[in-house]
């Protein structure tokens, strides 16, 4: 039972003809070849599969492709604009806020969602906002620092 589902993906319109109940994660990773969105747990606990849906961070393993019909989806591949890294990406690099890098796309997009709702979060608010995103390598303190410095960089201008 395939349906054609249309949405915006990384600033481009896309139309996919798929079973609309399929998880967004796998449609992104296989049908659309965007492998930056990672599978970590499949049940929404870890955050590795986080994408932006209408600028809000959501877990693509727990969404169907139907859920994003007509919406605006951004994956990690679509965060940099015109070759210019997003301040969060820049800050994650500068703060060495990653090791194996597997959770990194989800961390950055979760942080994006956090900063969108609270552009100048306190240290405590960052921790609360990131609490349900897992990193096994232990990059947490640097991730918090990176988000703080990205928030500072984004003030004004953006």
């Amino acid at each position, binding site marked *: 039972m395939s349906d054609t589902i249309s949405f915006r993906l990384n600033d481009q319109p896309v139309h996919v003809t798929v079973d609309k109940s399929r998880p967004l994660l796998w449609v992104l990773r296989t049908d659309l070849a965007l492998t930056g969105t990672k599978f970590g747990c499949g049940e929404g606990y870890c955050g590795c599969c986080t994408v932006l849906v209408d600028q809000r961070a959501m877990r693509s393993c727990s969404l169907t492709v139907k859920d994003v019909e007509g919406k605006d989806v951004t994956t990690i591949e679509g965060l940099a604009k015109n070759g210019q890294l997003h301040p969060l990406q820049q800050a994650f690099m500068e703060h060495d806020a990653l*090791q194996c890098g597997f959770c990194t796309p989800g961390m950055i997009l979760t942080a994006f969602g956090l900063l969108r709702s609270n552009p100048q979060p306190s240290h405590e608010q960052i921790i609360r906002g990131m609490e349900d995103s897992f990193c096994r390598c232990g990059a*947490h303190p640097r991730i918090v620092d990176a988000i703080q410095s990205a928030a500072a960089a984004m003030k004004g201008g953006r």
Partner: protein
Amino acid sequence: MKPIDFLALDFQGGPSVAAPSFQSRRDFLKRFGGGIVVFVTFGDLLLAQESTHDVRTPVVPRPGLPTDFNAFLRIGGDGRVTCFTGKIEMGQGPITSLPQMLAEDLEVPLDSVDIIMGDTDLCPWDAGTFGSLTTRAFGPALRAAATEAKGVLLELAADSLQVPVAQLMAQDGVIFDQQNHERRITYGQLTKGQKIERHLTVRPSLKDVAQFKIAGKPLLRRDARDKVTGKAQYTGDVRLPGMLYAKILRPPAHGAKLKSADTTAAREIPGVQVVQDGDLMAVLHELPDVAEAALGKIKAEFDVPPADVDDQTIFDHLLRVAPGASVVSQGGNLETGKQLSARQFETTYLNSYVAHAAMETHTALAHVEGDKATVWASTQNPFGARDQIARALGFPAENVRVITPFVGGGFGGKTFNLQTIEAARLAKAAGKPVQVMWSREEEFFHDTFRPAAIVKINSGIDATGKMTFWDYEVFYAGDRGAQHFYTIPHHRTAAHGSGWQGPPGSHPFGTGAWRAPGNNTNTFARESQIDLMAAAAGADSVEFRLRHLSDPRMIPVLKAAAERFGWTPAKAPSKRGYGVACGIDAGTYVAAIAEVAIDPAKGTVQVKRVVCAQEMGLVVNPAGATIQMEGCITMGLGYALAEEVHFKGGKILDTNFDTYPLPRFSWVPKIETVILEANDMPPQGGGEPAIVVMGALIANAIHDATGA
């Protein structure tokens, strides 16, 4: 979708090699044509790897050691330098630190160095990436190769410039006459059209640390940009034309046998292929989620053996079936020590099974064509995987190529390579490339956990608060970190079993190496016991340790931690919530001090601050070393505070992160690290040492807060 042939980590548009298979040095030279290639063969280096390898890789009989070379680098006609290593990048940073070493010794800019990692056809044989060995064992070979290559280049330049070698200087990929800087020639110019092969069997004298310009300096990760943009490829991101995704039928418990499986409903889903290869049954489909749905439609029945142990009764079971002890170290006479004691302390320490829980689950993509197989794999030991796959398929090892893209965390868990065998068998059976990516439930089920372990210590102090004797027995954690380093006149340390596997029938499921294997358990027990005695002696726990330390490496490390922490002596337990612990792992000395806050009403522990001091010999990339320490501390909070695998018989009750907690952002304390300078010592391990102190550190701090 473009298949990639191997992980070419070229940073500045370096050589891109669409590489066919080649297995020998001769093939390698043919493939790359000209340039300078240095092969290094060090007997002692091999021994260093071997001695560790012996203990550590449990399932695979070792392949023959390479007799020709075990490290190499190539300098191309374009002046670019390529380093080939069987090591892999799983977050610990060799992708940065190895080129850093190479650039230093070869005198080239860092961005002219490319690195090819974990490809069994392109890289020299390697035991695997574990044991914090990359920098200390592989590093010297790489540095030697670079030094040799520089020597060759200087000779070529002497010819070309008509200047004696002694008058020449190499810098930034250029050789110039020190008396006339205009007389200069680049490495690329020298290498062009040359075919020079060097074999290095004698260790050359290496550049002095004091002259380091690139090594020893903090450096940001070279893979960071690809990792923040989603470009970095992990095994699960590799695509091949016509590939299928497999979902494997799993038993409900370890030891369960398949009785029957009705696959009718699964086969009705369009495009589904059910494959059975002996005991391996899987559903294949061109979409992973459809394969998963189809797997759910298989009605399977299993014979499940009765559950005779669970996470409560396991320790009694383990003690019952424990192998005999072998003495790790001893001195004096325990009976004499006991007679000297005013007080004795007999304690049993228990450690539960702990999962690796890397964020990337075990993944492999296999492509079998005729009698050849290519397998992309998330593995810490690509050469081990190659041999396992070859055996499973009945192929000679040289017909199997394992390619290791970025690995999404390993921690010792990605050394058994079951998923690579599964993918290879299914690809062979299906006649198409097959990807196996374990679900989180499969990851918990097939993880080779840190083994449950027991440590029994009997120890004593005399009336003046001096340690008199130490009788230490460890079960199932092995001897890594078991030996104490305190001044105790009468002591004995014994280990039951060699480590993390135990004899058959001891553990109800797989166990294996877990970051600093064995040492977490041993350090937890030893440093807890030391604190117990310090408290009984009415002493300060830092002072008590110093009183019993004579090791010239440990004393400054503990003092450095105490100084940075701002430690003020107090009789333990001080009610301040301060804890201290020391440990030695992979040649590195660690001391840490923590502050915790206890909420008695809620029964919760918040770790407020951890100061960790470490002496690890020469530090190649201080930024990387610091990050490894932070990672160890953060990861270690998990086993110290919460992580424990729940099971009943062979059934693993934890299937996802809802019941198995990982350290979260709110758990993480303020972390301060101190690395003591020890440039006269060769580099020691960095990826594991700091995690070993975490169990005792937190336990001691809690004890200091509560007095209980």
